[in-house]
């Protein structure tokens, strides 16, 4: 019953870049076409001749160098967006089915499970990542120190369906 669907991943940064580029291309085309049509049908003058007149005689300066550096920076960001791999968003559960869960969902389960444990007065997720989830637990001061170990073992058993590469740690503190 092994699934063959692709692993869930975040949308590629290049997709957003490509969307913005297509939008820019469309808008530039519309503006160019309007600039050609409007002078023929209305009293509106084309924007191209004044633009060319402004550019005529332009020399290299600190401003053109700064503009060039800015353009290089934007280009580098685009190149990076094209090369960076799509981030994995889910953890695969140990199951015959093709079942996945987000690290945030796994952390929510761990926090809820810890907060129901005897002697625990509060629990929250301190760190949520694909490889490591840290649950901060506030314990009742009357409980013994080995209660933290018991809690850790209990969480490990309840979250045994998470992949082996993901560890769930408990950071325990005693309530004041």
């Amino acid at each position, binding site marked *: 019953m092994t699934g063959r669907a692709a692993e869930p991943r975040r949308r590629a940064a290049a997709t957003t870049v490509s969307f913005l580029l297509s939008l820019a291309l469309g808008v530039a*085309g519309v503006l*160019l076409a309007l600039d050609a049509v409007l002078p023929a049908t209305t009293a509106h003058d084309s924007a191209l001749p004044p633009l060319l007149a402004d550019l*005529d005689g332009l020399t290299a300066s600190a401003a053109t160098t700064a503009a*060039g550096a800015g353009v*290089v920076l934007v*280009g580098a960001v685009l190149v990076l967006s094209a090369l960076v791999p799509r981030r994995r968003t889910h953890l695969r559960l140990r199951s015959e089915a093709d079942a996945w869960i987000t690290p945030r969902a796994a952390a929510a389960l761990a926090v809820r499970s810890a907060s129901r444990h005897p002697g625990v007065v509060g629990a929250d997720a301190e760190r949520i990542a694909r490889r490591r989830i840290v649950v901060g637990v506030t314990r009742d001061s009357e409980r013994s120190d080995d209660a933290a170990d018991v809690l850790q073992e209990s969480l490990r058993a309840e979250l045994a369906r998470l992949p082996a590469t993901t560890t769930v740690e408990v950071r325990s503190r005693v309530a004041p």
Partner: protein
Amino acid sequence: MSGRCLSSRAAALAAGLLLVLAGLALVDWRQGVVLSTGGRVRTGTVAGLVDATWWPWAQGAGGLALALLGLLWLASHRPRRSLREVPVGSSDRTGTVVLALDGVARALCEQVEASGTTTEARAGFHRAHGRLVGVLEARLSEDADLDGVVAAAEEATRDLRRALPGDAADLQLRWRAPRTRRPARSRRATVRLE
């Protein structure tokens, strides 16, 4: 990697490289390290072209072509539509039997939600590498446990295999975190008198 993702990456890479080269040329204009171009910008030739009688037609046609290209490219970004129906094995020369996938998706969502582990389930089908792939996305319910989630996933996968026999379909189930409850606002106000 899907074709759409690949073309997006190619477009971003091409645009990025073009911008980097243009920016470097602009920086080098003053420094003159690589292309000792120096001098002033002369737009006289282009201005002469713009004044020609045929120019507005060429500009209009070019603009329309660019706008059309941009629109087509923009349209390629729209979300992939879910498959509506699929022919099943009982089809032959006398007729085709199709299975409405909307109903299958709805049934899967209802089944997974009925397990008590899941809320807000939605599912859709698409084709990948010649196979039918169902993706069910849902949110964990507040009192879900992982064993229950896995049991619901395995049952849904088995049921889909029964509906589409012959190892014809895959089902992927993805869960997000439970919705966080915002603390209810108290109608009481506390006023400290000093």
